[in-house]
């Protein structure tokens, strides 16, 4: 896809550097939007094309006539704005410094409140959340979220396991009340409802952007360059790039994404296919939606780190950016012809392969060419725990004399370097079976994609076999052999559930990787005792489900106990569980 020559509808220079992601747009007088950004350590700039801000602390900038500067004598970490005051539609500016939050009324030049933030400030947003009917300022800290009302009083507070990197308010469960979506640097998107976490979505890297799309969809971006869209808690698609996404916005009918290197692209919402692409002259600092031209619809406003601001109207695929550059029908036909020829070319190549294959079919199998392989070659993949190595052993084998030349295992977040694990045995060790170790570092379900290259030792070309294997959440725990010494740890959690033991068995079979499924011997059995061994550190995990509903999980890892309870509760549809 070429960089297209899409022209912005407006373009301006702030003549100031802009700190990436510390940018907001606010209507300080209630009607006119002003771009507000951090321009270096403690300086905030406010762009006001619709006339001067009254006066006060903001000083007119030397570098630009329509820009005012505001110095806050502390590093600016985050900015946000919103109509916090219940009696006013004017936006208040929230300034987050490393340890405090200042709410400032730019129009009246008065401080609204000033609040210490002992947990630090990473991100600020404003929004309506849960049962609170007023606009709140929500602060994401190093391990907590905090909601403040317009007077600076705390209305809620909760602990988050990990630094908060991004937040949005979003009606996740469609009950008419907004939940808070929190993207954390421990690779989870968490959903907070009524001060309780109702869901965690496991991702593969720190979650740096979140953006609402429709009632049921939201977009996310990770520090490792992945962006994607969730619909009702399920991922629709994701794509990965080398760059990391600075901002995501839903504009027109497509998802706009600003990348750290200054590339902007518009993607199809249901597939992630790139529709349009533009390159800015400098790295991207922010991308926001605002009606900066006062035309009634919000434009996409892209800010580069050198202070260049570009505005793009909502993009519609068949119309292009503006109606005037509407393509002539003949042009459309030409593009379609190019596209059709692309398709034809791909089909012809595939067809040629089959034809050549058929032409060679009559050959004697003994005198095989360098690319050959018996047609009924199959690939089998097995995963089994390897206690000696402390990992899961992946065995890939063919069903005949062909060899597995190499295997690529693709999965995110389970390898220490990159996204692939490869095995390429030396020539003298080539067999029809190949082993590869897997060590998922955390307990999340993973899909591993396997590409195996199958052929003969001296082949010039190998057949690719592709398979996907699902690793359940607790695949790193294997059934402890009965001869094993008794568990000595005395840390445990207990709780009570009223559930048939058969259902518990199904949960175990679904979430653990077992060679033989756990089965209940007869209908009358009411209790279950099972013991696991962790492959990572050979620690023990004992689970006992007693007949009276008492459950006792014995493990020295409190995180694991939490994960188990969470998983079990989700499976059994429990919303409330008393645990000791």
């Amino acid at each position, binding site marked *: *896809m070429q960089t297209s020559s899409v022209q912005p509808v407006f373009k301006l220079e702030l*003549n*100031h*550097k802009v700190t990436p992601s510390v940018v907001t747009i606010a209507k300080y007088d209630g009607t006119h939007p002003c771009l507000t950004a951090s*321009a*270096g350590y403690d*300086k905030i700039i406010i762009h006001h094309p619709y006339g001067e801000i009254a006066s006060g602390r903001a000083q007119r900038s030397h*570098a630009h006539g329509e820009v005012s500067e505001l110095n806050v004598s502390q590093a600016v970490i985050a900015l946000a704005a919103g109509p916090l005051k219940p009696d006013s539609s004017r936006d208040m500016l929230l300034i987050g410094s490393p340890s405090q939050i200042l709410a400032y009324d730019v129009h009246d030049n008065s401080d609204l409140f000033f609040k210490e933030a002992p947990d630090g400030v990473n991100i600020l947003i404003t929004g309506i959340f849960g049962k609170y009917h007023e606009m709140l300022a929500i602060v994401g800290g190093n391990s907590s979220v905090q909601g403040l009302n317009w007077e600076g009083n705390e209305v809620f507070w909760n602990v988050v396991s990990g630094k908060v990197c991004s937040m949005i308010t979003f009606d996740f469960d469609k009950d008419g009340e907004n939940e808070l979506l929190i993207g954390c640097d421990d690779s989870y998107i968490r959903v907070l409802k009524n001060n309780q976490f109702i869901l965690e979505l496991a991702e593969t890297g720190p979650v740096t952007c979140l953006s609402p799309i429709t009632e049921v969809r939201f977009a996310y971006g990770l520090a490792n360059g992945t962006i994607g869209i969730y619909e009702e808690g399920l991922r629709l698609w994701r794509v*990965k790039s*080398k760059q990391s996404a600075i901002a995501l916005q839903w504009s027109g009918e497509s998802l706009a994404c600003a990348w750290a290197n200054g590339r902007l692209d518009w993607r199809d919402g249901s597939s992630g296919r790139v529709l349009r692409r533009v390159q800015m002259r400098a790295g991207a600092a922010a991308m926001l939606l605002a009606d900066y031209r006062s035309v009634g619809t919000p434009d996409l406003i892209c800010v580069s780190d050198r202070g260049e601001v570009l505005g793009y109207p909502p993009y519609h695929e068949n119309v292009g950016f503006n109606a005037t550059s509407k393509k*002539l029908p*003949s*042009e459309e*036909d*030409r593009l379609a*012809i*190019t596209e059709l*020829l692309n*398709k*034809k070319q*791909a*089909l*012809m*190549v*595939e*067809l*040629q*392969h*089959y*034809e*050549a*294959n058929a032409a060679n*079919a009559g050959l004697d*199998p003994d005198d*095989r*060419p360098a*690319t*050959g*392989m*018996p*047609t*009924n*070659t199959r690939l089998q993949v097995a995963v089994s725990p390897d206690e000696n190595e402390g990992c899961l052993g992946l065995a890939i084998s063919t069903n*005949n004399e062909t060899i597995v030349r190499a295997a*690529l295992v693709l999965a995110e977040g389970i*390898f*220490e370097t*990159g*996204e*692939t694990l*490869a095995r*390429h*045995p030396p020539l003298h060790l080539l067999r029809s079976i190949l082993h590869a170790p897997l060590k998922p570092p955390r307990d999340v379900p993973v899909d591993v994609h396997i*590409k195996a290259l199958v052929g003969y030792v001296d*082949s*010039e*070309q*190998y*057949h*690719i076999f592709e398979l996907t294997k699902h690793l359940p959440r607790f695949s790193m725990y294997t059934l402890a052999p009965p001869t094993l010494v008794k568990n000595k740890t005395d840390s445990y959690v207990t709780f009570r559930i009223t559930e048939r033991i058969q259902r518990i068995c199904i949960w175990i079979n679904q979430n653990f990787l077992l060679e033989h499924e756990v089965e209940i011997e007869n209908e009358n059995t009411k209790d279950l005792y099972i013991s696991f061994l962790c492959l990572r550190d050979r620690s023990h995990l004992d689970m006992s489900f007693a007949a009276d509903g008492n459950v006792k999980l014995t493990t020295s890892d409190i995180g694991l106990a939490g994960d188990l309870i969470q998983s079990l509760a989700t499976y059994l549809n429990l919303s409330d569980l008393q645990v000791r």
Partner: protein
Amino acid sequence: MDYDLTRVDYILCGITYPDTLKILPNPGHKTQQKFTIGDKNGVLQCLCIKDEEPIIQFKTLPGKSITSVQVALTNGNYIDKIFAASGNEVKGYTRKGKVFLAIETSVSETITSMCILGSDLILCSGCTVTHYRDLREMYSYICEDRVLDIAAFATPNSTRVRVLVLIANKGAVIIENGELLARTQISSGPLRLAVPPTHRSAEVCVFYGAANGSIGLIQYDLFHRTDLSSKCLVEDRGLGSVVCVGWYFSNNGAHLAVGRHDGSVQLYLVDLDNITEQPRLKYTYFCGEPVTSVCGGCVGTDESELLVSTFSGRVFALRSQRLITGSVSFNNMTPDALASRRNKLELEVARLEKQTANEREKYQRNTRSLQAGLSTPPLLDIQYELKEAVLNGWQEVVITAGVPLDMLFIYCNKQLDVQTDSAAVLSICPPQGQTKEMLATVRCQAGTRRIWLQMCGRPGRSAMEMAESTQVLIYVLPTSAPRVARLIKFVLPALPQYSLYEDPDSVNNRVWCELRVSGGFSVAEMTSWLSEALPGDLPRPAANISFARSHSFLKTVLLCRYQRGSAVFKSDNITTIAILKDVLANCSMKRGIRVDMSCDIPQVNCSMLFKNLKSDFVSEYQRSKDRILEKAIGALDLDVNIVNNASEPTLCEEYQRIMKSSVEDTESKLRFDDLVATVEQWYMDFCKLSLYGRDYNSQRLRLKAALQNCQVEEVENILTNNNNSQIDMEY
């Protein structure tokens, strides 16, 4: 971009070789021209375009791959003929597709390019240029290396033909009647020639496009018989190597059209009256895969357009936007014509989809059957090229495929640093076992047909490792069915930076270290051993070989002279000799051939070497210091406007200079650390080759410290003192 051209797709054909698309000259008054293209399947077709719909004039049956196509007209009669070369055959076709000429030549290798001038036919194949007149062989000239392209010139008042020949290894020669008239070396490595359309016959004058992406001019004065001279007109500027050149005429004048391996097409406006003027870049288009031919002509409309063919076999025109949006009536075309073409194509694609689905089903059924047949898909069409090392020692491999690629899997038997295209995701895999291998995968963006990888051995490897060849295996995995992965193998040379070609007779005034090798090896064996050490093509084995290369970064020279049983290598760079010695020892041992090696190291070598490098070294040191300061200033996060405020300077002049220079050269080409390591290595190799077993570690540490602090005198002292001590030892 000055011109606004739009792509109009015409046809699909098989994989094409460079310069196999030609536009037929105009017959009489008919204005629209026909074009002809030959592909790898051996199909030659001639087409004309009516209402953007291709109409086939004739099409031959598949056969041997067509590697060169030329059109020629017998002067006066306006009879144009098409000549297509495949293998060692040349066939001549009339406009109607009738074969009027078919010769099976005596050349042993595939004909790579040819030239037709009246009744003269000049062919290039392998290393030879063969001249036929009236189908009788006149002479055959053997060049020292592969012939890349030729241009033939008629001489005034004579039937003799002069031929300008481009030879691999960066040479260009002029041949007349099988005799060499003049020769030259062009370091940018010209690959393709384009004769200006109105050249004066008294002068041989040709534009060339080079491997490094630059464009230049080769001139030769026939009367004065001076030397062949060359001039670079357009510097490379990071564009890909040139695959084809052609001419395109429009109302604005003559344009040199350049098609490149990176998928770009450029139009340069050339002043034909003053051809040594720098051509002006007017237009660039990216098509995403290597461009194999470009030529201009009135194909689709009455106005001139640029016809382009690509590696995978797309043929399209780049046509002025005015002709497209202006009005449909401009080219007397009904709007329905396009729509009907689109519909036709849609139907065809639907039919193909069905057929492919059937075949796929058949194929899959086979895989389930108990009776094992053999699945033998043909080899994927993949071309690759290992390029010579650039300034900082990275070597590039360019992989081109006829189908979109999904992934590459790279395996190397040694530790290797890899970089790739920004659009692809490179992922280094965790090591398998304890060995020093490198495994990596590259995931390509959708639709990638061409991808480059840059590779560089890790510095600080032991001598043993350096002497072993670095073998790289790349498995190329395409996106589409059938799912097969092609294996590409190559060897990275031990001295990748000796990529510049020099004239062996003109390198003088150096302090040579000498390595003499004697033993029972043949010239061919020595060539194959050297291919493990040096990048690029080596001269073909002959009785007596002599060539010179220079280091792309340090400018040191390596001179090689060898014949059966004895070889002499000279270099002013001691490390080069040390590495070469290890490589040759290793290779000969593997072959079981006994060789005797002796080194002659002049005592002043290291200090002389450093003397040559001193100015670079000092300036590089300064630059590295500047960069540290610049980082510190950058960390202050100063406001650009305040810094640039001339009336109230906030920074001292020194700092302002650094800030400015950082904008100008963001990427310094020489790296200080590399230089330190290089000098240190010189010293170590010197000690190893000349002072056997002497402890030099303390000296080495002193040298390193002196180098890092840029104490030039101290460095010189250490390097020369050491020589003195060696003299002491000898006496």
